[in-house]
């Protein structure tokens, strides 16, 4: 049935609410004004120039990119074997393990951040790279495992069995046959884990220090104190990364499947 005009209008309102902030940020990042005035008094790239000239923010951007890359690699390296076990092997406690791995998603990030602070501070790991990497890997891991479980599950069992009958040991068949077939899933999982870490704000707020801060934390603090279009330019950097990841994930495995809950 074709949607009626009432539905179209309401849906348009819904989309407007969903997309307005991103669109407005994109426009205002090119503002020539000194404040978050909309419509902008004029257009320029001065705030992007200011952003690139801002040593503290650029350092944070670099740090976040490195952190997110490391986290993506760790989450994949730890998540793929676990996902393979969950998707392919039968062992006691399989459902319990799958639930445990998904559990961090059920807890508010605020509580996770607090818990990590309480645990890492006495170990002198708060405000350190290892602490941040551990915290971010823990939040990224459920995403990696979920996507890879689906990806491995989608590889027909018979293809792996065919490899066994041709003389491949189970480990070799998993590495040579199943993993390459699931490679698009792995790329999507890596991209998503990168983004989860790159965007992670709340947990990081608990774990960063004066000399080790990430881009989202810097941006959070900036918004808390000042409001000029520089922060819009900064937001565009994060939106750009998110957009790239969204398109990549959509292309590789389909977005709904990656994030869907059922």
């Amino acid at each position: 049935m074709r949607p009626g005009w009432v539905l179209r209008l309401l849906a348009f309102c819904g989309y407007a609410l969903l997309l307005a902030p991103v669109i407005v940020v994109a426009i205002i990042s090119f503002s020539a004004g000194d404040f978050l005035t909309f419509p902008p008094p004029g257009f320029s790239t001065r705030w992007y120039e200011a952003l690139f000239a801002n040593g503290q923010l650029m350092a944070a951007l670099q740090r976040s990119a490195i952190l997110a890359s490391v986290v993506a690699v760790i989450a994949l390296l730890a998540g793929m074997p676990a996902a393979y076990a969950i998707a392919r092997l039968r062992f006691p406690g399989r459902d319990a393990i799958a639930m445990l791995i998904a559990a961090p998603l059920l807890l508010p990030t605020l509580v996770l951040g607090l818990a990590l602070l309480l645990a890492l501070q006495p170990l002198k790991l708060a405000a350190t790279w290892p602490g941040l990497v551990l915290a971010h890997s823990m939040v990224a891991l459920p995403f990696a495992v979920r996507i890879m479980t689906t990806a491995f599950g989608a590889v027909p069992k018979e293809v792996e069995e065919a490899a066994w009958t041709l003389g491949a040991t189970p480990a070799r068949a998993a590495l040579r046959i199943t993993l390459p077939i699931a490679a698009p899933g792995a790329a999507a999982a890596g991209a998503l884990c990168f983004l989860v870490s790159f965007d992670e704000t709340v947990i990081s707020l608990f774990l960063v220090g004066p000399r080790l801060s990430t881009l989202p934390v810097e941006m959070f603090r900036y918004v808390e104190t000042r409001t000029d279009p520089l922060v819009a330019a900064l937001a565009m950097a994060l939106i750009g990364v998110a957009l790239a990841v969204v398109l990549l994930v959509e292309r590789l495995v389909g977005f709904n499947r990656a994030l869907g809950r059922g």
Partner: protein
Amino acid sequence: MNAALLLLPAVLILAAGFLYPVALLGRISLNRTSDIGAMEPDLTLATFEKVVGDDFTWELAWNTATLAAGSALAATALALPVVLLIRAAPPRWRGLLSLMAIAPLLVSGTARIVGWLAILGDQGLINAALEGLGLATEPLRLINNLTGVRIGLTESLMPYACLVLIAGLGRLDPRLEEAAATLGATRTKTFLRVTLPLAAPALLAAFLLTFVLGVSAFITPRLMGGGRVFVIATEIFDLALETVDWPAAAALAMLLLGALAVALVLRTALTRSARA
């Protein structure tokens, strides 16, 4: 292949980064804070008593619950037409439309708040429009207060509501509505008598999920509230990092977890009874 070996790295990360910290959080909530503000190891419910006995905690809880309920309701209500449109759209548009509804989930919350500041601020889009139309001489206060938090939270919860509704309504056969139409029902009647009752379980699930997420939201209340809106999450943050009263922060966090657990159990029970 050995399942235990394959699971080991993931389990190690979870043990060190999740299980141990959360267990420690529970443990620390049983400690005491001395008069000079230092944490003293103990096994007491004194901190819980102090937190629960404080009227401010209950005020925060009420603020948090009403804020979350209002925003969750608004997010679910606004997500419904979006998802109904996605469902009715021709297949080649469906992917793009659902991508547009869900993708904001992946855009940093802070970045979206910058957008809201530019829309709702004193010199923002709304106030500029109102002034231009001669409808207001004074700027409407839409940020740094509860209104701003409500709007921002509604928007940040909407993608989740869409996700749940897409999954829930995707299973409904669109021919049911066509059947109602062939039987002479108007669009409104079809919606009220067929679509809405069938969508009810999904709507309930969407509301409960967004409510739970709204209760624990931190960034939006903090930034859109301009430090003037207080909820449980902001209080936990301040206790941990400003006051540095770890036992109190831990106790409040444990109470929040307890409340969320109750909500989760309720949700499971409700969705199960809705399905039965």
